[in-house]
C-alpha cells in the first residue's frame, strides 16, 4: 500500500513514517523544499529507507497536492504550523489543509487520517474534574483561544466539512501534549515559563500527555483499522502524570527545573485580572492570558483513551518511568 504522510520529517511525522514502513507500507513524504531529512532518515533507518519516497512541494499549491496524492491509498495529514501569529498559523495549517483535502476529494483516497489536537475541545464549559472524552463538543468560540488552537480547530473543521459532503473517508486523531526525546517533558499544561522560572498552577491534576511513539502507533492504526470512518479518537498515555511527577522525573534525570507553585484556585482570578489589565492598557501587555484560555488549559479534568484502545486495537506499550527516561536522556 502507498501512504502519503505530510509533515513526515517532523517530531511526530517521522515516527509515523517509521511505523508505516515497519508495517511493510511504501511511504511518500510530502516535504517543503527547505525541509531537512537527516532526522527522518535516521529514524527510519538505512535498511528500510528504500520504502520511503520524498516529494518536495508546496501544500498550498493545488497541483503539488494533486500530484502528491495521486496513487496514494491512505493520507496521514500530520503537517501543521506550531508557532507564529494567527495569520502565519492559518497560512501553514488551515490553507494547506484545504488544498490537500480538495486534492484527496478529486483523487479519491481510501482513508484520510487527520492529526488534530486535544486542545480543540471546549473544555471551558465542563465542570471541574469532569471527564473529557470524544463526546465533548469542540470549542464554539475558537477565535477566543490561542492562535495555535484556533488554527487547529478550523483545520479540523475543514476536514469534517469534506467528510460531511461525503467525499473524504476521514478519521480524526486528537493527541494530548506529545512528549519524547528532544522535546522533554515540560509543557504549558503545567504552567507558564516566566524569565526562566516555571510558574506551575497546582500540581496534582493529571496532564493529558502522550509519548510520541505511542501517538505514532495510534495514528498508524487509525489508517489501517477498517470500518472507523467518521470517528474521532483522543490519544493519551495510560498513566497521565501530574506536574509533581513530571518535575520529579526531571530531577531524577539530573535536569531539575526551577519552578514556583501557585495554587490552582489562583489561575482563574489571575487570568481575569491580567485580561482586564491588558484591555485597560490597550494591549501594553498582550492578552495572551485570558479567563477563557486558562479555563480551557488548566481546569482539572479527567481524560480517557478508552475509545482509542478499543476501536483502534491500540495500547501504549511503555510505562511513564520508561518514557520519561527516554525523553530526558
Amino acid at each position, binding site marked *: 500500500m502507498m501512504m502519503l504522510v505530510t509533515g513526515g520529517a517532523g517530531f511526530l511525522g517521522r515516527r509515523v513514517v517509521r511505523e508505516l514502513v515497519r508495517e511493510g507500507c511504501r511511504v511518500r513524504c510530502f516535504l517543503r523544499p527547505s525541509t531537512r531529512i537527516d532526522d527522518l532518515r535516521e529514524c527510519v533507518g538505512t535498511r528500510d529507507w528504500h520504502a520511503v519516497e520524498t516529494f518536495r512541494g508546496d501544500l*498550498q499549491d493545488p497541483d503539488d497536492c494533486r500530484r502528491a496524492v495521486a496513487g496514494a491509498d491512505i493520507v496521514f495529514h500530520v503537517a501543521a504550523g506550531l508557532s507564529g501569529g494567527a*495569520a502565519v498559523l*492559518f*497560512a501553514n495549517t488551515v*490553507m494547506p489543509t484545504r488544498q490537500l483535502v480538495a486534492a484527496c476529494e478529486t483523487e479519491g483516497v481510501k482513508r484520510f487520517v487527520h492529526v488534530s489536537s486535544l486542545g480543540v475541545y471546549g473544555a471551558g464549559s465542563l465542570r471541574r474534574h469532569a471527564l473529557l472524552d470524544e463526546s465533548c463538543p469542540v470549542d464554539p468560540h475558537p477565535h477566543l483561544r490561542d492562535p495555535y488552537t484556533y*488554527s487547529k480547530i478550523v483545520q479540523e473543521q475543514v476536514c469534517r466539512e469534506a467528510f460531511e459532503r461525503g467525499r473524504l473517508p476521514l478519521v480524526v486523531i486528537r493527541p494530548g501534549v506529545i512528549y519524547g526525546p528532544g522535546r522533554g517533558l515540560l509543557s504549558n499544561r503545567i504552567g507558564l515559563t516566566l524569565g526562566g522560572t516555571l510558574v506551575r498552577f497546582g500540581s496534582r491534576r493529571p496532564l493529558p500527555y502522550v509519548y510520541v511513539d505511542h501517538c505514532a502507533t495510534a495514528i498508524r492504526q487509525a489508517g489501517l483499522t477498517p470500518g472507523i470512518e467518521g470517528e474521532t479518537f483522543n490519544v493519551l498515555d495510560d498513566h497521565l502524570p501530574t506536574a509533581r511527577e513530571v518535575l520529579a522525573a526531571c530531577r531524577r534525570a539530573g535536569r531539575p527545573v526551577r519552578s514556583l507553585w501557585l495554587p490552582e484556585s489562583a489561575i482563574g482570578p489571575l487570568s481575569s485580572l491580567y485580561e482586564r489589565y491588558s484591555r485597560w492598557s490597550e494591549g501594553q501587555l498582550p492578552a495572551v492570558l485570558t479567563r477563557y484560555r486558562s479555563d480551557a488549559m488548566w481546569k482539572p479534568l479527567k481524560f480517557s483513551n478508552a475509545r482509542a484502545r478499543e476501536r483502534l486495537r491500540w495500547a501504549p506499550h511503555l510505562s511513564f518511568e520508561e518514557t520519561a527516561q527516554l525523553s530526558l536522556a
Partner: protein
Amino acid sequence: MPERSTSSEPLKVALIGCGQIADAHLQQIARIRSARVIAVCDLHADLAEQAAARFGIAARYNDPAEMLARERPDVVQIATPAHTHHAVARLCLAADCHVYVEKPFTLTAPEAESLLDLAAERGRLACVGHDQLFDPAWLEVRDRIARGELGEVRHVESTLGYPLSGQFGALVASDPRHWVRRLPGGLFHNTISHPLYRITEFLKDDRPQIDARWRTRPGFNFPTELRVDLQGASVSGTLTFATTIASQRITRIYGTTGTLECELDGQIVRRIGPAPAPGAFAKLLTPWRQRREAARTFRRQLGRFARGKIHYFAGLKSLCERFYDAIRTGAAPPIPPAEIVRVTRIMDEIFETARQRDASTNWGGAERRGSEWKAIARDSRPAAAMRESLT
C-alpha cells in the same frame, strides 16, 4: 448603499491584506477614537475570517472591488504584499477612498508618482507606512535636534538587524518562490524602508550620491546583507542591513556639536558624544552624564508603563491618527507626497547600484533589470497579484 461618514462620525476604515502586519493595524486603529474598522478583505477567505473574528469586525470580503462598492470606506489601509500595493491602491483611489499604504509604498518611483497623481486628481490623500518616524522615541529625537542639542546634523548611521531565524525571515529564506524573493530588491526591498527613512529624515537631497553593495551569506542563495553609503550636500548617511546580528533598530545621528543614539526597541534616546570635558575628566563625566540620562529615561518609561502607554506599534497609531486628522481637517498629510516619491526613488537607485555592482549574481529579483520589473508591475491587476502572495 452605505454612506461615507459625516464629519462628526468616526472615519470608516477598511483593511486589505490580513497577513502578519494586519494585526498591528487592527490593534492600533482600535485605539483611535476618530476611526473604526468596518471591514477586512483578503483573497484568502481563511485569513480574512480569522482577522475579522479575532477583532470583532462584522464584514469580511475576498474581493477588494466588492468590498469598496459595498462598504464605501473613507480610508483603506493597504497591508498586502509589496508588489500589489500599486494596483490595490489605484483601485481604492478610483473608489474615492483615502489610502494608507504599508512600506514600501510601491516598487518603483514612477509607480509612486502615478499613484500620487491619481490621488491628487481624485482629491484624496495617500500615506505611506513610515511609522517609526512617529514613534515616541523618534519624536524625542526630533525635538532634541530642533532644540539645537546636536548643532547641525551632518551624518546618520542607521542599522537594521534582521536575523533570518525570525518568523518572517525564516519563511522568506526557506521558500525560493516567496514573493519577497521576487522583488527587484529582494529581501531588502521589503525591509529597508525603515532604516532608510530614518536617514532621509535628515538627508534632504533629492538625488544624493549613492553607493550600495549587497552580499550573500554562506549557505544562502540570495543576497542577505546590504551596505549603503549616501552623500548629500551637507549630510551623509550609512545604512547597514545585517542578518548576522540580533534583531535591532538603531540610529545614530551625528551633529556638529553632539551625537544622539536612538534605539527603537527600547524606545530609548541617549547622548553619546562628544566628551563633555577634556582629558581624564571625560572618562568620569561621560559615564556620569549617561547614568543620569538613563535614570531620567527609566523614570519616564516607568511612568508611561504605569499609565499603560508603552506600545510596540505606537508610531503606527500616531501616524494613522495624524493621517486621519489631515483627512478630516484638510490639513497637510503627515508625510508629504514629494517625500514618498523621493524615498522610493532613492530605494530604486540603491537596488540599481547594488545590482550593477553584482551583475554576476543570478538570483530571483535582482537578476531582473528595473525595466522588466516596471513591466511586471504594470501588468499586475490587484486580484492576480495578490493571489500569488501568502502572508
